[in-house]
């Protein structure tokens, strides 16, 4: 294990440096990194029985920084590895031109930043990871160089940097009050009057970065304006990193600060995001905007974890089910959304635009891609048997068990809305007309299909990931039975 964690942290960064030096070899370097990381993760997950901690440089916290892998970290590391591998296989950039020279190192830096965040237990180190993630994501959003993409990227950057500053302010206040940055040191802290302010600032910053309604304004233009492989990373992975920090913060570091009003507010904003994102997705004429607004809605589900499993509810029997359900949702959404954006990229290249009408007859021209899109849609709607279904089932049952059935409203209505807005592209694809799409090689259609199948398998074989998530599960989400 003393080698596995450094491999996960350092290999994407080394790959990015190699891709800066040899832009022409970008794809080969990216795939090499993917092979090393998938192998490292297989070894890690295979041998993970209790959380693994690695103090960096031999310096223990509070002086140094420790990396730690528990079930939650392993699950997100795995999500990042699977999605990034798919994206790197699918990415079409070749040669040493502007786009290729930027894409490969930036994509690998994004992966490195994600891994750094998923491994970290240190608030300031998490801030540095977020900075790297933000810069790589903004640059990828601007990659096409069109005026629209540049405007969307600038807007994204302004929001994201504001989020970073708020988070950093909260981190500084936490350090000032407790002289500690390690998450494990905070539950046993000596309470200070400024704790709520610090937690509020960190949370506000992370909400902006996660694009929870009403901080979602930057998401749809940035995610839909990026090239498809970049959109897949931005939508499937980047908001999950800031949400992951929120989970760590509220369920491990500061669970005692979870006041009922705060938990209720998070749940209400999450429900509002589900409904707003769904309605907005219904009204879009362009496929990439439909998928991007669907991300706004799907992010809303994640925040139901606060009222269902946070604060005083943490001690209740249903809390663990809600916590696990939300993590399942994050994983299933990541796989399904990456598959959808990669499909959209294939159709954009084949049709010349991404209007939904342009998809008419796509089922004949690109059957595998349409199948992949439909499978991903099943998971987003929450139909069985899919990861999305398992997630919603756990959330809805814990809402009823908690005697708060109104928290089931979002998942149930959200599923209907998702069915409505995803019906339009699928209906167009199955229209009985001669397709006007240029042919797409089967090999390219196989990547989104594999990712979408992953989202389905997460529901069919939910026991192994379920067991993985129980390793080192936070105390606040661990009491009681499922």
């Amino acid at each position, binding site marked *: 294990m*003393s*080698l596995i*964690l*450094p*491999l996960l*942290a*350092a290999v994407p*960064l*080394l790959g*990015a*440096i190699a891709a*800066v*030096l040899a*832009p022409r070899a970008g794809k080969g370097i990216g795939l090499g990194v993917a092979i090393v990381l998938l192998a490292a993760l297989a070894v890690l997950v295979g041998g993970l029985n209790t959380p693994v901690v*690695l*103090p*960096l*440089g*031999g*310096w223990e916290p*509070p*002086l*140094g*920084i420790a990396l730690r892998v528990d079930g939650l970290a392993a699950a997100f590391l795995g999500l990042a590895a699977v999605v990034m591998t798919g994206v790197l296989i699918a990415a079409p950039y070749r040669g*040493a*031109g*502007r786009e290729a*020279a*930027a894409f490969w*190192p*930036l994509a690998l*830096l994004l992966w*490195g*930043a994600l891994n*750094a965040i998923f491994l970290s237990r240190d608030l*300031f*180190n998490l801030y*540095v*990871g977020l*900075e*790297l993630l933000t*810069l*790589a994501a*903004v*640059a990828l959003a*601007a*990659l096409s*160089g069109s005026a629209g993409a*540049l405007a969307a990227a600038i807007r994204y950057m302004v929001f994201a940097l504001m989020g970073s500053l708020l988070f950093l*302010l909260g981190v500084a*206040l936490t*350090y*000032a*009050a407790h*002289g500690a940055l390690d998450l494990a040191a905070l539950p046993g802290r000596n309470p*200070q*009057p*400024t704790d709520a*302010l*610090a937690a509020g600032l960190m949370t506000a910053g992370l909400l902006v970065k996660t694009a929870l309604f009403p901080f979602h304004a930057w998401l749809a233009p940035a995610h839909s304006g990026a090239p498809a492989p970049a959109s897949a990373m931005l939508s499937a992975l980047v908001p999950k990193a800031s949400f992951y920090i929120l989970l760590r913060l509220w369920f491990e570091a500061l669970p005692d600060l979870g006041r009922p009003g705060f938990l209720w507010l998070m749940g209400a904003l999450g429900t509002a995001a589900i409904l707003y994102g769904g309605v907005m997705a219904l009204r879009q004429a362009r496929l990439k905007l439909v998928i991007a607004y669907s991300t706004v809605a799907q992010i809303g589900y994640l925040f139901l974890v606060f009222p269902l499993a946070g604060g005083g509810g943490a001690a209740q029997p249903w809390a663990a089910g809600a916590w696990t359900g939300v993590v399942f949702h994050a994983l299933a959404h990541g796989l399904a959304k990456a598959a959808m954006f990669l499909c959209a990229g294939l159709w954009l290249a084949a049709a010349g635009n991404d209007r939904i009408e342009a998809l008419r007859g796509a089922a004949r021209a690109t059957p595998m891609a349409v199948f992949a899109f439909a499978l991903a849609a099943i998971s987003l709607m929450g139909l069985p048997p899919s990861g999305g279904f398992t997630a919603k089932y756990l959330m809805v049952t814990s809402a009823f068990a908690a005697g708060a059935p109104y928290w089931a409203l979002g998942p149930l209505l959200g599923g209907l809305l998702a069915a409505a807005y995803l019906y339009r592209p699928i209906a167009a694809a199955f229209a009985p007309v001669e397709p006007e799409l240029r042919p797409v090689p089967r090999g390219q259609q196989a990547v989104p299909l594999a990712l979408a199948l992953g989202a389905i398998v997460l529901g069919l074989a939910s026991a192994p990931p379920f067991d993985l998530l129980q390793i080192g599960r936070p105390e606040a989400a661990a009491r009681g039975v499922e």
Partner: protein
Amino acid sequence: MTLAFDLVLCAMIVGAAICAAVAGTIFAAAVFFIVYGIFVSLAWLRLDAFDVALAEAAMGAGLTGILLLRALGRMPASEDRPGPALAPALAGAGLALALGWAFLALPESAGLGPVVRNAAPGAGAENPVTAVLLAFRAWDTLLETIVLLAALLGVWALSRDEAWGLPPGLPQRVRPDGVLAGFGRILPPIGAVVGVYLVWAGTSRPGGAFQGGTVLAAVALLVSMAGLAQAPRVTSGALRLVLVAGPLVFLGMAFIGAVLSLWQPGAAFLALPEAHAKSLILGIELMLTLSIAVTLAALVAGPPEDRA
């Protein structure tokens, strides 16, 4: 006496910030922002945080100032400026009040200062700031240098496809008898000595890779702006090697530790062998300085452009 100085300094910081926020033109706002940066670095000096003061003066006031003024040069000439923004002003004031309350509510605490000072000599650096940056929290520093690289890749990605492969920034033209040409001959040798000294001094006194790198970046920019040397193309292998040299050596050293840890009990990822820690830290700092200097200079120069 010192209390009076501090109060005047605080008033000038707040005054410069307000002037920057309400200035009549964007140019005036940029200038007040630079002035604000200089005052803030004075405040860090008063707080005995010499390393932060150096960094704030070099980056906060210096490089950011150049970036703002250059961006201003690109903007279409117009007298329009955004009107008073009430909501951000209120949010800023609210945040300031909350932080003020937090300052008063918190007990005075030394943080980890004493622990760091005790452990620093064992980490190979007498300057506790260097010990934190390159030993205790080396992972942060490593990621920060890679953040700089990501920023530069992002800026380069903004070039137009036709200009890709040219040197960073616009081609410079200078009058041979102008002020810039004169400065370009006199200042670089002085700047180079100061920059290298800051790195060298960093192990035992205030200074280090970021501060020294900024000074050297200014030297590189001056040489390029004075037309004394042509910047290399963004596709140049040599330039790219210099850009990644610091992070690569840092990451490589860190990784060797991880591999050694398989059979050596004392070794670990990001751990430097204690016997050689001091010289290794200096070596890493020198490589980092080189990369930071070139990255910062390239960031300020901007994406490659043809005169279109």
